[in-house]
């Protein structure tokens, strides 16, 4: 059982990493198009030479041809298949695959779709999930997205996926279609998408290419997400040199539904119809499969001499918005037996997965697929990643009603096949069979690799390079300057330049969004029941210790959700790593998976799904290991949510949790010294759990007027943000027994800043003591400055200017 699945995953050829090539270039001379039946001993095919080779009718390779022409050379390597994988396909079929079959297997057995390098490790999630953790999970690992029961008959589904490589090649469309893909995954569960969030990572903020990538990605997320009417409620933006040639663009979506509306992807019931609906199928996003087709560089998409189209798909959010409303109407009318989105691997994936998960076979007539280009080959139609398409299984009696709903939304819908007896997926084209395979061998029984895992000796060097000797500020004026410098640094400064390009209000249920610790949306308007979500990962911690670092990512997301007043209930992830062929990367990956799974077991909340993205590297330099962890929380009434920052004057500021001298992987070491080394902060998940329970208890009882998580940049940054978000200062005194520098900048985990009305302080203190959570009084809110004893006061305007100016000055003025 894989912890994450291919469905809806989007794919570009992994080998294009670090290259700006839009379409992967085959290593050798491409095999020419098959020119009809060919003598078995015919000469090897050459590159396309003339217009004759463009005639589609001359290109189609059928099962019949595969039998009569068994030894024809096929470009399996150019499609990313290893020789032994190709051999296995021949073994499964008892003959050579047709072009269309080869295209299907190649894309479905790719790393992105088959999880062939990660499967053996991901099984650990299943082995560590207890019965108690399973109890609220309605659908988990292996479905389009995990589904959690949040009470009162409501279910919530959520998932993060990567769209890293396309977003480097073409930032706007890559990021836009990343949003589109994750939204369709959520729709495929029967849910209404209600919010999105985007964890993003880029090269250095002042890097030469960062502006191109960041501006395009942000505009793409906004352009697509805003047009879908989905509030963007969170995410992250992190800058690090390791992402310069390989940005990370992860997209999270949350959906809600009534428990009884849950839909799963399977095709069952002989005679049931397969309906493809949404956009037409075109030549975009075909990627590597283009080696099977003749190629020219002139003409347009619809013409005879077709233009070579980019391998990155092009999104149309208007079609997707209409598709959302159309799908929801279909669900509510009870017209859908099974449903699957078309994402990575397009129809190849949708048909093989639906058939594989069902109890019969499937027959599909490709001639019925509505196309937007002429002369497409079966392999191209099956591989196209044209966006905004869904595939449904519908009983024959419901087909007319289904079509009527689609017509109302002006959505094209076409019966393209039906569920059959038996266990074959058969696909016809112009009356001939071009695919005849056992669907399970395509969708679920792909190759599995146990890649070498080896901790590199370089890890010892990294861990030994402790930050203890780095020069530290000591004088009050130095500490003051350091607070300002940190607040203005790219990873800590205000994200408003980015998040102001996203609509956070639409649907009218957003009760908290960036810069709050967690995004929160109301699910039920009557009861106020809602959900909160946070995604986090400090990849520097993960680099220093992948096991502990991943648990710290989990701890931070968990703590952020708790800080907002919600109770954490489920976990998703997006595991972004370098090449699985690098044993050290596989060691990082293995450790991260184990750390996350063990951490979830300790916290008692399940991993409901996730995504793996390998080959994130530039040349042989992998990115920092970046297992982004998303935690979902539930809150009985969003009105009891805890606001971020200092919301009132005269409240007491309390620091919950203990501070230790922990600077390995810290933002301070990174910003001030460009240093990465030593050990990450200690992780204590029991302490995190006690803290979360205390926060839940205090917020439900209305004891907290504000709260803010301590993480990157430590207490200093938390105070700066609490002041600026709340629009008021505070008079504070640091813990006397801790060195002021350590108190301000250490990044010890399990700490939260809370504000409490003076007459409730003793109550909160007593609850903290009972819960075993250390509590320290720091001071009182109010005034025009962040005034920390022993340090010259920092006026709010000076702080605001430092915090807010960085991104606009790097990436262009805000519209304002």
């Amino acid at each position, binding site marked *: 059982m894989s912890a994450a699945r291919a469905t809806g995953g989007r794919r570009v050829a992994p080998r294009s990493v670090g290259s700006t090539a839009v379409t992967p270039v085959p290593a050798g001379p491409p095999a020419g198009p098959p020119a009809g039946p060919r003598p078995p001993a015919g000469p090897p095919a050459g590159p396309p030479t003339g217009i004759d080779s463009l005639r589609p009718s001359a290109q189609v390779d059928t099962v019949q041809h595969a039998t009569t022409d068994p030894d024809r050379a096929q470009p399996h390597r150019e499609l990313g298949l290893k020789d032994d994988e190709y051999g296995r396909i021949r073994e499964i079929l008892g003959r050579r695959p047709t072009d269309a079959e080869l295209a299907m297997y190649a894309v479905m057995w790719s790393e992105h779709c088959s999880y062939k390098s990660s499967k053996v490790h991901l099984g650990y999630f299943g082995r560590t999930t207890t019965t108690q953790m399973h109890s609220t999970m309605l659908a988990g690992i292996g479905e389009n997205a995990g589904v959690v029961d949040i009470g009162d008959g409501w279910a919530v589904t959520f998932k993060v996926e990567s769209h890293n490589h396309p977003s480097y090649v073409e930032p706007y469309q890559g990021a836009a279609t990343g949003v589109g893909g994750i939204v369709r995954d959520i729709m495929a569960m029967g849910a209404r998408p209600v919010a999105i969030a985007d964890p993003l990572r880029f090269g250095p903020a002042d890097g030469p290419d960062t502006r191109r990538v960041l501006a395009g990605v942000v505009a793409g997320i906004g352009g697509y997400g805003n047009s879908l009417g989905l509030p963007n409620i969170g995410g992250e933006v992190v800058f690090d040199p390791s992402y310069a040639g390989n940005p990370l663009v992860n997209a999270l979506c949350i959906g809600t539904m009534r428990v009884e509306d849950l839909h799963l992807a399977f095709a069952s019931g002989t005679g049931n119809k397969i309906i493809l609906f949404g956009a037409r199928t075109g030549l975009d996003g075909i990627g590597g499969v283009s080696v099977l087709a003749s190629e020219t560089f002139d003409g347009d998409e619809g013409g005879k001499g077709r233009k070579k189209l980019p391998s990155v798909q092009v999104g149309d959010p208007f079609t997707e*918005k209409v598709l959302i409303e159309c799908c929801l109407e279909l669900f509510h009318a009870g017209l859908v037996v099974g449903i699957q989105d078309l994402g990575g691997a397009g129809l190849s994936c949708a048909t093989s997965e639906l058939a594989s998960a069902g109890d019969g076979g499937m027959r599909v007539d490709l001639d019925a697929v509505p196309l937007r280009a002429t002369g497409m080959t079966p392999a191209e139609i099956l591989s196209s990643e044209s966006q905004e398409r869904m595939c449904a299984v519908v009983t024959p009696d419901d087909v007319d009603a289904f079509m009527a709903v689609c017509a109302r939304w002006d959505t094209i819908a076409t019966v393209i096949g039906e569920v059959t007896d038996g266990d074959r997926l058969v696909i016809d084209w112009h009356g001939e069979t071009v695919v005849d395979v056992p669907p399970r061998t395509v969708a679920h029984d792909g190759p599995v690799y146990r890649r070498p895992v080896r901790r590199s000796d370089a890890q010892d060097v990294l861990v030994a390079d402790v930050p203890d000797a780095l020069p530290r500020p000591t004088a009050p004026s130095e500490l003051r300057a350091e607070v300002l410098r940190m607040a203005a640094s790219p990873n800590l400064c205000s994200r408003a330049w980015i998040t102001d390009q996203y609509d956070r209000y639409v649907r009218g249920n957003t009760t908290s969004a960036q810069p709050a610790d967690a995004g929160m949306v109301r699910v039920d308007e009557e009861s106020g029941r809602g959900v909160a979500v946070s995604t986090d990962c400090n990849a520097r911690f993960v680099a220093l210790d992948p096991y502990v670092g991943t648990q710290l990512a989990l701890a931070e997301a968990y703590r952020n959700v708790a800080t907002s007043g919600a109770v954490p209930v489920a976990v998703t992830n997006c595991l972004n790593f370098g090449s699985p062929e690098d044993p050290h990367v596989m060691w990082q990956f293995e450790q991260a998976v184990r750390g996350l799974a063990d951490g979830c077991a300790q916290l008692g909340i399940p991993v409901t799904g996730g995504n793996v993205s390998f080959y994130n590297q530039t040349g042989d330099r992998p990115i920092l290991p970046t297992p982004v962890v998303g935690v979902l929380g539930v809150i009985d009434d969003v009105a009891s949510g805890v606001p971020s920052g200092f919301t009132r004057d005269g409240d007491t500021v309390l620091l919950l949790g203990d501070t230790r001298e922990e600077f390995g992987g810290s933002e301070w070491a990174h910003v001030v010294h460009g240093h990465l080394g030593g050990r990450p902060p200690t992780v204590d998940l029991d302490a995190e759990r006690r803290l979360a329970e205390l926060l839940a208890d205090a917020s439900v009882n209305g004891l907290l007027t504000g709260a803010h998580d301590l993480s990157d940049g430590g207490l200093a940054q938390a105070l700066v943000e609490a002041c600026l978000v709340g629009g008021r200062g505070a008079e504070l005194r640091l813990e006397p027994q801790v060195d002021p520098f350590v108190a301000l900048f250490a990044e010890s985990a399990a700490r939260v800043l809370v504000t409490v009305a003076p007459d409730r302080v003793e109550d909160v203190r007593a609850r903290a003591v009972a819960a075993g959570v250390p509590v320290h009084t720091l001071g009182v809110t109010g005034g025009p400055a962040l005034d920390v004893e022993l340090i010259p006061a920092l006026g709010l305007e000076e702080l605001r200017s430092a915090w807010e100016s960085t991104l606009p000055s790097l990436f262009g003025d805000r519209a304002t």
Partner: protein
Amino acid sequence: MITFPGTLDDADAARAVRYAGAEAVALWHGDHDLRGVAAVVVPGGFSYGDYLRAGAIASLAPIMSEVVAAAGRGMPVLGICNGFQILCEAGLLPGALVRNKGLHFVCRDQRLRVESTATAWTSALRNSQEIVVPLKSGEGRFVADAATLEELEGEGRVVFRYVGVNPNGAAADIAGVSSVDGRVVGLMPHPEHAVDPLTGPAREGLAVFESVLRVAV
């Protein structure tokens, strides 16, 4: 409450209407039927994907010919954001909305000054009252020729003006305008997102919807 394909803020506007104490009635772009409503809200979003030009295609939808006719009889009509663009395209309001000056989509809590309470949609507000309402648009920059601007100012038909920051480069800081009879109002900011402090920056936006209940029949 009209829904076009691509309309996004229809549920939000319906909620605001309910909060104000009225019944929200869903109207479909393809129908020729206003279903007996007393006032029409054209909500925000990206009708028809904003293809061709924001609001241009929606202004030709069957329901809009009914809205134009009803407005001619004095029915109150409110266009919010994309709805404002549609009313301009339909000829019910003067001027046009073009790409923001900064080119980016802008989502922010925007301070507005009420410049006219003599419309069907602002009578529950006070003259010169300042309210905070979310603005979220990429093509929200109001433009008109000099004569039109002079006419709007002269006739007191500038209904809302941006205060503090002009977020999109709008002419004369104009956020919203009205028809000659004050029955049709369009504005770029979203009063329906300022009806509950839990989900918006303030609740003064509700007054827009309460206003129309005083005059609608």
